[in-house]
């Protein structure tokens, strides 16, 4: 009898404990985290007087260069704010995952970093569903006084609100190999227009060199650049979609002709794959038409053995005297509304990205060209020699082009356009299944029919 009684007692005790635990767990789970009531300001939690306040700032970037740059600035920033005890959490998130992570964190209302490097294509996605409006801090009031000192606000502006500070002017550049041109007896410096490029390419091809490699399944930057320099793009300044404009059609035709008709550009569906790397390493490619970031983010890390063998010049114009370079996309630094330290987060961005010192350091450390106009002629920038480019003063080249860059306007359907230009335009047009004009028109109509 006593044993049975003991067993009953144990079971009941267990049952009580289990029920209470479950109830406590449920209550805890149902309890909502108290929202920040700082109204976009830095949190002002009580702290013993005289003690530095604990501040934890997290940052997500897809590009390791931003991690490096902001870590360096963070240590300097600490010294400017002895009233805070900072903890920095700057991480690199794989480029293929960062967009999903931002969207998930914004939709969930939790888990976002304080500062995020939001690529401008991804930002366009956040314009939908009020993710940007309700998830990112509108920087317009904060930058208003200094806005005109900088370029490249347009890719981060939507309905009058500014959601990011650009990392560079992203100038399209023709990185080329003077030694290969020399072997083919071609003077690359005489090239200005696409026709010059084709003429030079014909000679280079005879020696077995491609003039460049283009991505045949993705429009940025190789198709986007001629679209922009030709006066096209995705949207006009009023926010109207101009995808099927004549300028874009000419750019598309040029793109296809360079690969198929003139055969001076190597087209690949695996642009970021090993084939591209191997072709460059094996000296089969005489150049790459890419934005400024390609140099430090890719070339110096992937082809270190080619140090000093490269040079840079602007891209190519449709006609003499035409635009030779464009902004084809970079990463903007955004502050998330979930941040408890919005003001401090913006202050750090401001310190790194919106001061003369910050911009020159950005140039010297990670080589992203200043967006601040007055820095373009700063000797620390313009006189800087790049050893990978054989000592060339790269900033001088970009400083000449930067004032002429066509404005880049963005909108809610930019991601659909990127995807569609690859899938519904480039692939079928190159395969001969669609005419360029029909493909562009079809895509434009498809996007217009999408929910706005």
């Amino acid at each position, binding site marked *: 009898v006593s044993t049975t009684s003991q067993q009953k007692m144990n079971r009941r005790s267990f*049952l009580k404990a289990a029920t209470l635990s479950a109830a406590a767990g449920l209550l805890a789970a149902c309890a909502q985290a108290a929202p920040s009531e700082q109204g976009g300001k830095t949190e002002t939690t009580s702290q013993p007087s005289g003690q530095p306040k604990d501040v934890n700032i997290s940052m997500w970037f897809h590009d390791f260069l931003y991690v490096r740059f902001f870590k360096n600035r963070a240590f300097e920033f600490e010294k400017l704010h002895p009233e805070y005890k900072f903890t920095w959490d700057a991480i690199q998130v794989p480029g293929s995952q960062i967009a999903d992570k931002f969207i998930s964190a914004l939709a969930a209302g939790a888990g976002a970093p304080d500062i995020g490097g939001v690529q401008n294509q991804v930002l366009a*996605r956040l314009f939908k*569903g009020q993710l940007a409006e309700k998830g990112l801090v509108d920087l317009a009031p904060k930058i208003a006084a200094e806005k005109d000192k900088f370029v490249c606000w347009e890719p981060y502006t939507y309905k009058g609100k500014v959601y990011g500070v650009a990392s560079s002017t992203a100038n399209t550049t023709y990185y080329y190999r003077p030694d290969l041109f020399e072997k083919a007896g071609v003077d690359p410096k005489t090239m200005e227009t696409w026709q010059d490029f084709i003429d030079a390419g014909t000679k280079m091809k005879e020696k077995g060199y491609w003039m460049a490699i283009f991505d045949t*399944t993705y429009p940025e930057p190789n198709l986007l650049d001629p679209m922009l320099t030709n006066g096209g793009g995705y949207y006009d300044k009023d926010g109207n979609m101009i995808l099927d404009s004549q300028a874009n059609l000419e750019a598309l035709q040029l793109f296809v002709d360079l690969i198929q008709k003139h055969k001076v550009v190597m087209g690949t569906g*695996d642009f970021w794959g090993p084939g591209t790397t191997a072709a460059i390493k094996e000296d089969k490619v005489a150049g790459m038409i890419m934005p400024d970031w390609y140099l430090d983010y890719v070339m110096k890390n992937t082809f270190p053995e080619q140090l000093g063998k490269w040079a840079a010049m602007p891209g190519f114009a449709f006609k003499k005297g035409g635009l030779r370079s464009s902004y084809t996309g970079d990463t903007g630094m955004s502050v998330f509304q979930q941040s408890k330290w919005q003001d401090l987060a913006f202050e750090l961005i401001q310190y790194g990205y919106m001061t003369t010192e910050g911009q020159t350091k950005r140039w010297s450390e990670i080589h992203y060209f200043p967006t601040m106009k007055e820095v373009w002629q700063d000797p620390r920038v313009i006189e800087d020699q790049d050893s990978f480019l054989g000592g060339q003063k790269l900033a001088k080249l970009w400083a000449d082009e930067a004032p002429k860059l066509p404005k880049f306007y963005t909108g809610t359907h930019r991601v659909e356009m990127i995807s569609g230009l690859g899938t519904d335009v480039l692939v079928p047009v190159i395969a001969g299944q669609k005419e360029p004009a029909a493909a562009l028109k079809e895509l434009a109509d498809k996007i217009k029919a999408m929910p706005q």
Partner: protein
Amino acid sequence: MRMNEVATSKVPIPNRESWLSSFFSWMGSRKVAPYVFITPFYIIFMIFGIGPIGFAIFMSLTSWAGLEAPKFIGLANYFQMFKDATFRLSVVNSIWYIAAMLFISIPLAFLLAAFLNNHWLKNRTVFRGIYFLPAITSSVVIGIVFRLFYDLNYGVLNYFLGLVGLPPIDWIGTAAWFKPAVIILLLWRWVGYTSVFFLAGMQAISQEILEAALVDGANTMQRYTRVIIPILRPVILFVTVTVTINSFQIFEEPYVLSGRGFYQSGGPGDAGLSLALYLYRMGFQFGQLGFASAVGMVIFAAVFVLSVLELRRGGLFVSE
């Protein structure tokens, strides 16, 4: 002592201990206790299982892109979906994947299991481990390795094609070859995993039955067709249903092979776009969360119908 007794009798104090005790003893009673024990599971299942499904059904009837309020639009998402050529393309691609998994992967897995089940094979565990390895390898690593493997100019596959005089193939750069490239990757990744189920089934077959077949004069082929396969019918059914369900959800393989991540994950010309990738595109990339939920509902319905058909055909619903 006497005073205390008087005080107690005058002021009735509710005995908290006693109602708590009776509540817990009621919960501990034979009739109630089982329900109490299973309640936590059902609460969690409701929150994380039924709740999201119900929410997804509701969302599929709305136009919703994120943080703003969803707008009820009835069945418009479904109508739009069936009109969308990209959806139809993803259905066709998924059918290819399902067919490849059912008609190539399962027979290969069976053959592999039969090979591993041979008594003369030494270090069977090592082989089993090797064949299982692709299933647990990181998809990022798989993506990098296979893109190297398939590379037009430097890929191992094209090297072997060259050895037999065949021209190189742009496996992942052209629409025509992207799907076969995904299917090869799928087979590499899942055949070994599937074979483990067959191997477990084969090893559970009594040796006496197999020896009896041998004594009766059955050759190897007859032992498989007349004895092993009929006995393994429940395993085959399980594998078929599981593979069908998983094939509908193929996502990682075309995603990593395309190497595009967020922006363009279906391969050139969407040649590898599966239904799950289409859902991801519409939800995450294009921000049409209501539409993506509708795609999810269609996938669920298709998986359900196909699984029931397979189970019926497999004899699960046949009354004894």
